[in-house]
């Protein structure tokens, strides 16, 4: 397909399915903690807007959780189907870590998700809050295992290679590998930020539609505090993450910066825009700021980092792609910073809920966190190429021996199916968002007609909202 090799198609397939997947867990992580905070505030202040917001977002949480489960099944098998040589070599480490993730997720689902989604009037408020908190903690533990697994592939340690395969000798070293704490912090905070932006956009959207209720105001207000406080933290964490990458994966940073070679004694500029050309070994049309690269990456005025030419051509990641995915992530990050500051200023001027221009900006920024997450992952994953286990196993040695034709067909089916199924799921979520939080009065709402109902995520939503399917090329009935 399009002259792509089997290896490239296998990488695109993995990249596509995992990019589609990561969106749902990211929302799950952020929303679970948001729900825990809402319930805590409801129990503490007895203000019904918190409770109404809890019910509103728990419905969206349920649909999103179901999408995450469905898209996750594919991931549990893809390591074997498409990356069998990797699995045979390093499944000894990835397998146990993924098993722990699955066990955590199921433990959580078996224990607390049902209570959280269905138990509002069946268990006491304390126990219900406990269940929500446990779900939130569970999502964080799940993320911990997955990020440990990924980070080990980026900065592997704690293992020996015996008889041609990886044998874990120190699990603590495997899990707490050098890039793990930074990646975990960066991803968790990214999930929080993405959900804050999404919640804020929902509030702003309802305000623009003249549905000015206390609950709508509260969700915009909470979201803007979150964006204001967390964005600078995220930028600081990202900076530290970059320094770790520079130490352990210098080629990745060189590619991200489109930096080819050093001149003796010369400082490193920061290239704002440009087009890295892998064949010509240069970054074309570069617009650069002198010294800023040194300042950001070495925290000194004239510091240098290795350039791409310091690495053999077969050891270089594709700078053309990661240069841009990185700039999309960082650019969105600075727009988030702007949104947070603007929100604070609008709040101070008492026009947070009125300024049309600000509200429109907040709506536009709704998907920014999720886009930044995907762009960030593309940067870190493409940036570690050509290695699947950094410095230990090359990606080309990891793939199964499938033909390009086979991979093309499965990729096309995956894309069409994901568009249809998850497109429908996302539309469904947006329809729920569009309904807005409903004030419930004194009696807590309970999903209607749910007697004999299962404790399943999707069925937590009582509404009949038509999930019409949208296939590329028109509506199908």
């Amino acid at each position: 397909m399009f002259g792509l090799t089997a290896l490239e198609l296998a990488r695109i397939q993995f990249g596509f399915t995992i990019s589609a997947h990561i969106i749902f867990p990211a929302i799950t992580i952020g929303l679970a903690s948001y729900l825990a905070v809402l319930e805590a505030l409801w129990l503490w202040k007895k203000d019904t807007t918190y409770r109404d917001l809890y019910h509103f977002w728990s419905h969206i949480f349920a649909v999103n959780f179901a999408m995450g489960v469905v898209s996750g099944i594919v991931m549990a098998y893809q390591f074997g189907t498409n990356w069998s040589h990797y699995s045979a070599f390093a499944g000894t480490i990835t397998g146990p870590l993924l098993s722990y993730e699955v066990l955590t997720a199921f433990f959580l689902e078996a224990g607390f998700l049902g209570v959280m989604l269905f138990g509002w009037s069946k268990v006491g408020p304390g126990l219900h809050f406990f269940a929500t908190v446990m779900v939130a903690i569970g999502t964080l533990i799940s993320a911990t295992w997955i990020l440990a697994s990924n980070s080990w592939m980026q900065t592997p340690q704690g293992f020996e290679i015996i008889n041609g395969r990886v044998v874990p000798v120190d699990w603590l070293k495997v899990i707490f590998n050098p890039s793990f704490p930074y990646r975990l912090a960066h991803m968790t905070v990214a999930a929080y930020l993405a959900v804050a932006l999404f919640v804020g956009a929902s509030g702003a959207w309802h305000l623009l539609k003249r549905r000015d209720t206390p609950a709508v105001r509260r969700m915009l207000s909470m979201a803007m505090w979150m964006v204001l406080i967390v964005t600078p933290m995220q930028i600081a964490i990202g900076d530290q993450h970059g320094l770790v990458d520079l130490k352990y994966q210098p080629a990745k940073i060189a590619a991200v910066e489109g930096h080819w070679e050093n001149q003796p004694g010369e400082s490193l500029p920061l290239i704002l825009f440009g087009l890295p050309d892998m064949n010509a070994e240069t970054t074309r049309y570069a617009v650069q700021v002198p010294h800023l690269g040194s300042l950001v990456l070495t925290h000194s005025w004239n510091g240098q980092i290795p350039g791409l030419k310091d690495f053999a051509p077969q050891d270089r990641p594709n700078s053309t792609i990661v240069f841009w995915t990185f700039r999309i992530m960082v650019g969105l990050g600075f727009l988030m910073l702007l949104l947070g500051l603007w929100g604070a200023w609008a709040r101070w001027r008492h026009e947070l809920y009125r300024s049309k221009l600000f509200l429109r900006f907040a709506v536009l920024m709704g998907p920014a966190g999720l886009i930044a997450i995907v762009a960030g992952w593309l940067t870190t994953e493409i940036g570690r190429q050509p290695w699947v286990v950094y410095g230990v196993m090359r990606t080309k040695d990891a793939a199964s021996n499938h033909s390009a034709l086979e991979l093309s067909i499965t990729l096309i089916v995956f894309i069409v199916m994901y568009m249809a199924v998850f497109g429908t799921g996302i539309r469904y979520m947006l329809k729920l968002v569009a309904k807005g939080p409903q004030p419930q009065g004194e009696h807590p709402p309970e999903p209607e007609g749910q007697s004999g109902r299962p404790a399943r995520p999707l069925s937590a939503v009582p509404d009949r909202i038509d999930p019409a399917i949208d296939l590329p090329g028109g509506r199908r009935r």
Partner: protein
Amino acid sequence: MGIDLPVIWAVIIGFGLMMYVVMDGFDLGIGILFPFIRDRGDRDTLVNTVAPVWDGNETWLVLGGATLMAAFPLAYSVLLSALYIPIFFMLAGLIWRGVAFEFRFKADEAHRPFWDKAFAWGSYIATFSQGVALGAFINGFKVTGASYDGGSFDWLSPFSLFTGVGLIVAYALLGCTWLIMKTEGELQHRLKALAPRVTLVLVAAIVIVSVWTPLTHPSIATRWFSFPNIIIFSPVPVLVVATTWVMMRVLRNETHASPFLLALLLLFLGYTGLAISLWPNIIPPAISIREAAGPPESMGFTLVGALFVIPFILAYTAMSYYVFRGKVRAGEGYH
């Protein structure tokens, strides 16, 4: 250390796989019966009987995938890459069917038939793919060193296509008998009329597989027909015959739970027969659980978590089946 990790893990994964086959089996079976039950109200009742439990059933599939990689990375890598196409179709079928489960209730009238079709088609494709994978598994794989060395379509054979159809029949029987247990009145009556035919087709399929495998695999023939094995293993075929006979009898009278329990027994016997044929190989025809096992560092580490969490999953499963026990009536309780 005294703990035989490969055996423990083979038992855990084998148990998990059986849980999956039994539990997702009957809810896939309901999708398989969909084309035979046209009435809309009946279809709702059918789906409502499994709605409370079906997604817990798929837990075992995901758990199976992850723990197989942890305990037997070689088997995970060889089996999955050799079975890439059937597994791909299985996943696609399960995804469609999983979302159709919910969306058919949430859709408006115009879109409902689409999700009904997605539900039935997804169930057929997922089941057939699993059956094909099973047949290919019995036939064995070509392995060189630590990797699969066969072609993309080695899984495709008359035998694997036959086991694909066979599994559709097996799940249809599980679904049909489950529904006899969960429904009543005219619908139950029709299902009871259907069950004997499905049973006989399934037994015929079991007989054909039981003759076909030893004929094409001398090692399996030796396993079953050498002395004293032929005596030790003889209860398996005898029990299959006995179970079928009891099944046909109970279906003639007023009955509720017994056909389902008998169908489970039949499936369990088939599963046992398979285990007898293949043990201790995890990548037939020649790689045993010991050869495919991961290092003890990986198996032991994962075992701690599995032993802690699996009891919770079992308790939770048992609880949800207990809570949702009894008959499901038309238009009752759901949505």
